């Protein structure tokens, strides 16, 4: 091999696969042991290995939540720096730090990170870290997804990096403070132990790998992997024609001020680097639709990984990607701006802007815009039958964008997630609701040569007691964008049915504290995906099939695909 590296390519590949398996096993352990369905069922968590020197990403589990791609390297970097600066106490073997501060390299407060150093020969060789979405971290609304918070304190308990485990033992005092500030605290001890268990299992497996191949060899492999990932990303960038590509994406509103927020993006490929310039994006907003720097960068990374899924997740892959122009915009908010919408919604608009820019450059590799919303519908109240309080979440998918050679998938997961939606039967077992419908959102796929996928159309009736509903969704004003002549997908539509009277939230896709009585119903139709290519190029048989299957009415099809 050329260059400074002595390691043979085979050992390198073996160590790369081995490090990947360590991360995958941490992911699996965390999910299997967790209590909160958000982690156990929806896999809203991620585990990885980070460098001792600056926290940069060495390897990350392949089944981790995509929005966490790269995020933990920022929080680990901050932690390493704070230890170096003497702000945070230095670690001893067996210590595990906890942190959820969004402004110290995070996402929203609900994403709680653990970090544990791995010691080799008396020195820290790397960090293992994981993130889990806790079902509650205090704040003004159960679950933390406020649509109307105007400062960080309203969103929940904010923890700087502190040692939750000291020499392997849970610190009862810190845990007591946390417990006193979060809802449904009694089961969180199970999640805390699951999160720690994943790191301990990972440390054990990593030690086996290092014993086997030797610390020096693994260290060298890590450096080489980083170099190779950077080269691979550069090779991919080489597929993009030189030039600049512009796109915009819009967040419906910040939940407080009813005006759209703009993400303005210019992607420029020059040589083997890509620059993502967000100059011209909206200023920081009053409501919780701000993003923090780590989340913004991670959103760009995850979009690139959707486009080039073969490039391994490693700090090297991010080297040729440069993000500029976010200072002073809502994509780089600072304390005390509220940020609860950053991971679930703003991140997806950022990814959408990346897709919309690059589909112009490499149309064979990028889809039209996907629904791109997590579709959070929260319902909280007390069930008079049991006397117990409840907080219900319905997350939902939407249509994906059409792509060269295929129609978009129906009811796909959010761009930033991999979580499955809970079954209707499980929801009805747990909460006093009855689903009247769980169906295809007919007509929602954007027209095109390849049409967008269909959203979801569901309707939930409250059976007993009163409850408060909240919504944090998006794409209520304009549907996911079509590409290359394709049309936009259908918008997200929320309706509250009080008997025969139907109302629509003022902010369309965002609302909080809507009071429901028994018999009241909520109907949500999620966005369809954008169409790809001119509708006039669609195979008429495909149009006829969609009509035969009732996905569009004959009238809709005649309007969307005239003459087909």
């Amino acid at each position, binding site marked *: 091999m050329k260059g400074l590296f002595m390691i043979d*390519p085979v050992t390198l590949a073996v160590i790369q696969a081995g490090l990947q398996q360590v991360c995958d096993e941490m992911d699996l352990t965390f999910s299997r042991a967790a209590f909160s369905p958000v982690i156990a069922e929806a896999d809203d968590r991620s585990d990885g290995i980070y460098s001792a020197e600056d926290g940069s990403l060495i390897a990350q589990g392949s089944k981790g939540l995509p929005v966490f791609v790269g995020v933990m390297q920022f929080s680990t970097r901050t932690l390493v720096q704070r230890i170096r600066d003497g702000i945070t106490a230095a670690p001893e073997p067996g210590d595990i730090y906890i942190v959820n501060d969004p402004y110290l390299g995070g996402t929203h407060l609900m994403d709680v990170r653990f970090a544990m150093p791995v010691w080799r020969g008396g020195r820290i060789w790397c960090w293992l870290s994981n993130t889990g979405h806790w079902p509650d971290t205090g704040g003004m609304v159960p679950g933390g997804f406020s649509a109307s918070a105007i400062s960080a304190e309203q969103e929940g308990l904010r923890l700087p990096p502190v040692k939750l485990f000291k020499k392997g033992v849970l610190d009862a005092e810190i845990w007591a403070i946390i417990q006193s500030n979060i809802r449904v605290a009694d089961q969180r*001890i199970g999640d805390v132990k699951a999160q720690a268990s994943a790191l301990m299992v990972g440390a054990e497996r990593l030690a086996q790998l290092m014993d086997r191949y030797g610390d020096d060899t693994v260290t060298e492999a890590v450096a080489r992997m980083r170099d190779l990932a950077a080269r691979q990303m550069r090779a991919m960038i080489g597929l993009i024609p030189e030039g600049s590509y512009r796109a915009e994406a819009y967040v419906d509103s910040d939940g407080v001020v009813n005006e759209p927020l703009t993400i303005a993006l210019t992607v420029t490929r020059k040589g083997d680097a890509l620059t993502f310039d967000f100059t011209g994006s909206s200023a920081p907003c009053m409501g919780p639709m701000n993003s923090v720097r780590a989340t913004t960068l991670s959103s760009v990374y*995850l979009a690139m990984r959707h486009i080039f899924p*073969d490039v391994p997740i490693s700090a090297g892959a991010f080297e040729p990607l440069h993000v500029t122009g976010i200072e002073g915009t809502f994509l780089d908010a600072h304390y005390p701006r509220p940020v609860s919408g950053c991971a679930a919604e703003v991140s997806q608009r950022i990814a959408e802007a990346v897709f919309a820019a690059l589909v112009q450059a490499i149309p064979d590799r990028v889809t039209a815009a996907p629904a791109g919303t997590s579709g959070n519908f929260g319902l909280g109240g007390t069930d008079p039958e049991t006397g117990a309080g409840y907080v219900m979440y319905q997350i939902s998918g939407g249509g994906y964008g059409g792509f060269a050679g295929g129609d978009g998938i129906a009811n796909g*997961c959010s761009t930033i997630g*991999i979580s499955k939606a809970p079954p209707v*039967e499980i929801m009805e077992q747990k909460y006093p609701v009855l689903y009247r419908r769980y169906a295809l959102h007919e007509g929602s796929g954007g027209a095109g040569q390849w049409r967008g996928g269909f959203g979801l159309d569901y309707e939930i009736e409250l059976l007993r007691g009163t409850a408060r509903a909240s919504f944090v969704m998006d794409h209520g004003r304009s549907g996911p964008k079509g590409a290359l002549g394709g049309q936009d997908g259908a918008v997200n539509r929320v309706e509250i049915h009080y008997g025969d009277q139907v109302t629509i939230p003022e902010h369309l896709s965002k609302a909080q504290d809507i009071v429901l009585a028994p018999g009241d119903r909520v109907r949500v139709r999620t966005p369809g995906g954008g169409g790809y290519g001119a509708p006039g190029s669609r195979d008429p048989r495909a149009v006829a099939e969609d009509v035969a299957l009732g996905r569009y009415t004959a009238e809709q099809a005649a309007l969307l695909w005239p003459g087909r």
Partner: protein
Amino acid sequence: MAGLVAGVDVGGTFTDLVIFDPASGGVRLAKVPTSLPNQAPGVLAAFEAAGADLADLDLIVHGTTTTTNAVLERQLAKTGIITTAGFRDVLELGRRTRPQAYGMSGRFVPIIPRNLRLEVPERMDARGRVVTPLDEAALRAAVGTLRDEGCEALVIHFLHAYANPAHELRAGEIAAGLWPNGYITLGHALLSEAREYERGVTAAVNASVQPILERYIARLAGELKARGYTRDLLVMNGNGGMVSAAHVAREAVKTVMSGPASGVMAAVATGRRAGMPNLLTYDMGGTSTDVAMIRGGVAPVSNEIEVEYAMPIHVPMVDVRTVGAGGGSIARVDESGMLRVGPESAGSTPGPVCYGRGGTRVTISDANLVLGRLPAARFGQAADAARAAMAEQIGKPLGLSVEAAAEAVVRIANTHMAGAVRMVSISLGADPRDFALFAFGGAGPLHAVALARELSVPKVLVPARPGITNALGCVVADLRHDFVRTLNRPLDALDMAEAHGVLAAQEAEGRRLIAEERIEVRDIRAEYTADMQFVGQTHLLRVALPSATPTRDQLQCLFEAAYHARFKVELPEIRASVMNLNVSVTGRRAELDLSRLIDPVGRRATAEPQATRPVWFAGAWVETPVYWRDHLPLAPDLTGPAIIEQMDTTLVVDPGCRVTGDADGNLIVGVEA
């Protein structure tokens, strides 16, 4: 059992047959090409090749991929479904997923198209109380519509039917009066658990393969009868047991994983006789590798297998994990100069370069050829082409010699396969050092020794006939019935008398079914398990119970111990709960003598190599003795390097590893750490 017993397994490429004569201990084998799409002619050809007179046979057990292929190739019977009003699209919407974690494109075709999914007014709530009565007129109309559309099979799938099946049962009764055949599947009948998508897909797959399986089995049974076979034909189930041909179609979905299951059952039987109850099974074929963990002589069974993207089949099936690494997996150097192997595969057409069928991209098989592990002579000129392709596609970009390049390909492949084995073993709390690697399939023994070393598995067990292991699994498998009953109660609120009653009833039902099957069994055993969790968790941990009457304390202790073994933490703060109580009832059949799978006539007194050839081990060519397996003595004692060839596979023994054998003709390779 006096007469002959036959196991016949239809795989993707070959149909394998093994016939035992329990009286004389004699064994007959045959391997013939699989016939497609109708597998019956291939099965009959196998009996002909073995020179078997069907009138002499007492029992034929059949493993078939008919339903597997039907599902994977979507060659399904036209099927309609009737659902609760508002929910016909559940089968198309799934659980809000995408095919890969990264990449926003992909395809998904629902198992039943939208125009054949109809709705009727009816509704139960989550506790099984009627919210909306069944509209029987609407149901009649819907059944009529689907019948007139030409549907052959029908599914009735209502919300919460697991809690109260009254509407489904009534609808099934009405439909039976209108439907031209018996192909009606009720959602709750196969799987009485919540989760409408998983239950619906399981039912829909069952209905869609039912007519196909029944036609095939009826035709085969007819052909066998015409040739003089008078007994019952048994079919392998995915749970590792077998069922009568007369009943198999009713729960056709259970045969979807029958191929991998029979391989695991053969491993169980072989390991039991060899005194190795802990095995990691490793079946490497042309496009993929199946692995499973057998602990204490028990095959692992799971209720949650996804046979492909968004196709969950939630009935008990042997838990086999598949990775996309087989002999045909393609090796390449990616854009950054990193060597990658698979998951892309050259399959069997065009296949590896060395097959000479037009394949141009190098594969794992080509690497084995370049390294001298496969005999170059067998491949003729294509061997040279494979070597040239390896040099060009892997050696040149990596700056490696052709041999080093091929060795690298094999090592990467082994790493992937080792990862899969770890996921079914270490990640479930098992230590590989307590296991032997059971290597079979055409390519398994080529990699087994190196793989065992990678995993720190101390021994490799190579059965007498690695290439017919699935057929062997058919004859050695037991009769088996699995039952699951969902209770979902905190342990301290569990009515222990009720729990004992559930276990007893399940066991009684299993014993009744086995008695009905009229197959001679040695004994009937029941195994009791509980699926438990801490209150508030969603994943379950399965705990083996010592009897059908466990005490509350026993359940608590067993669960805590299992939890600590898996997760290394204790949770005294939280109560335990019991989700399911399960019983597996097994009718164990008389043990067969496996010692004559290799004909004793060919055995020689000492192990003498037939030839030598250069084989590449750890960076150098080593002149290596080549043995013919059928000529080895029963208890060979030789030390690698060695190549041991037989009709259906090649075993590679690394330098320093010692090969011994046992009374059944198994080879046991001790792996130097």
